[in-house]
């Protein structure tokens, strides 16, 4: 198992409760997670398939994602367990939501993902930049989703 640390932050033009709700919406997560092919919510667990790949290295992982809402809507912990042809992965990421001002929420995340299999020992220099890139993609898309929602929400408020 090779451990990759992931961390970062993102600002969303929405109030915190809304961000929280959207982050718990499988449809949105499925659209934002890179390579996510389907995601369904079963109890407090999301089951899905994710195509994870970089260049010619790619494989479809069966993933289980669980969200433990420690202190809704301030913080939660996301755990992911995946298995695929290239090996296994498991991770745990803590998310913290903080209201910065009205309709501005900061999302910080910090955690690690362990990757197993041959990729862990031969792809080492690559893994970090790939994981950073995938995380960046996820939050960019999430931001787009949330921004779209917020303008829609704003439109509603005006009406």
């Amino acid at each position, binding site marked *: 198992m090779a451990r990759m640390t992931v961390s970062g932050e993102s600002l969303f033009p929405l109030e915190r409760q809304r961000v929280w709700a959207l982050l718990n919406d499988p449809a949105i997560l499925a659209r934002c997670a890179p390579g996510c092919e389907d995601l369904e919510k079963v109890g407090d667990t999301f089951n899905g398939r994710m195509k994870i790949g*970089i*260049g*010619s*290295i*790619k*494989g479809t992982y069966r993933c289980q994602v669980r969200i433990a809402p420690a202190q809704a809507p301030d913080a939660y912990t996301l755990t992911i367990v995946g298995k695929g*042809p*290239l090996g296994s992965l498991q991770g745990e990421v803590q998310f913290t939501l903080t209201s910065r001002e009205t309709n501005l929420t900061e999302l910080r995340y910090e955690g690690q993902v362990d990757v197993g299999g*041959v*990729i862990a020992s*031969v*792809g*080492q*220099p*690559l893994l*970090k*930049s*790939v994981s*950073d*890139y995938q995380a960046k*993609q996820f939050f960019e898309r999430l931001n787009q989703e949330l921004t779209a929602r917020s303008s829609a929400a704003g439109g509603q408020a005006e009406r």
Partner: protein
Amino acid sequence: MKPPAFRYHDPRTLDEVIALLGDHGDDCKVLAGGQSLVPLLNLRLARPAVIVDVNRVAALGVIAEASDGGLRIGALVRHRELVRSDLVRRRLPLLRDAARCIGHAAIRTRGTVGGSIAHGDPAAELPGIVATLGAEIRIRGPMGERSAPAATFYTGPMTADLAADELITDVLLPPAPAGAGWAFEEVARRHGDFAVVGVAVLLALGRDGRIGHVRIGVIGSGPVPLKLTNVEGALVGETPGDGVFAGAAEAAAASVDPHSDLHASAAYRRHLVGVLLGAALATAVERARLAVTPR
């Protein structure tokens, strides 16, 4: 270390290649020089159902002068041919110097221009040259031909604006201005390794001795090969000298966001960007001043 089973095709024409890619798309991988793909196959990290070997498509192996005086380099041109080509030496010695830094002789003999550009390793030399010069990547797919500008071609580490059913056919490198100087500077752990950091510079001086045209690229310091447009902009109109080089080096180091890995810390990479750019600018200016024709 044996690949899983795959179906193998070795078409003779580009049309056949495109048809095969169209048929198999995402399950399919193009084999050119095999310098990255074959190890990945053997490690079972790449598991395509179909391999389309393009080595027999002769049309892809040409180095030619483009209509604008630049170079058109076919996807199947081997790195070694870049090093040996008279046309490349005369028109774009920067490309030759970069190609010389690729791996070892055996790798340069097999590895291809198209393969390296498609693979898109952010520490590899040719993607760096593509970014530096703002090359145009010519691509064919089931929908026909298109051109991808270098600036937006790479979207992430080893990730490019290239669909599974598309093939890079050639790359168009714009002509270097008359009397341009150049330098390719690289630090690697061992001879032939991927760069820890590499810097490419192409520049031309005006009649007044000031920098009139400059292109700066950096590899090994981000998720994609970088073109340092801001530093280029600041250099144009400057009279070259140690102070100007140092300022550019500092600006370059500040503008990159490199990563740490087994071979170098992020801080060291950042430092190298500055050091190598300073050295490359000095060399390039010297060459521009002498208007040296390389041997």
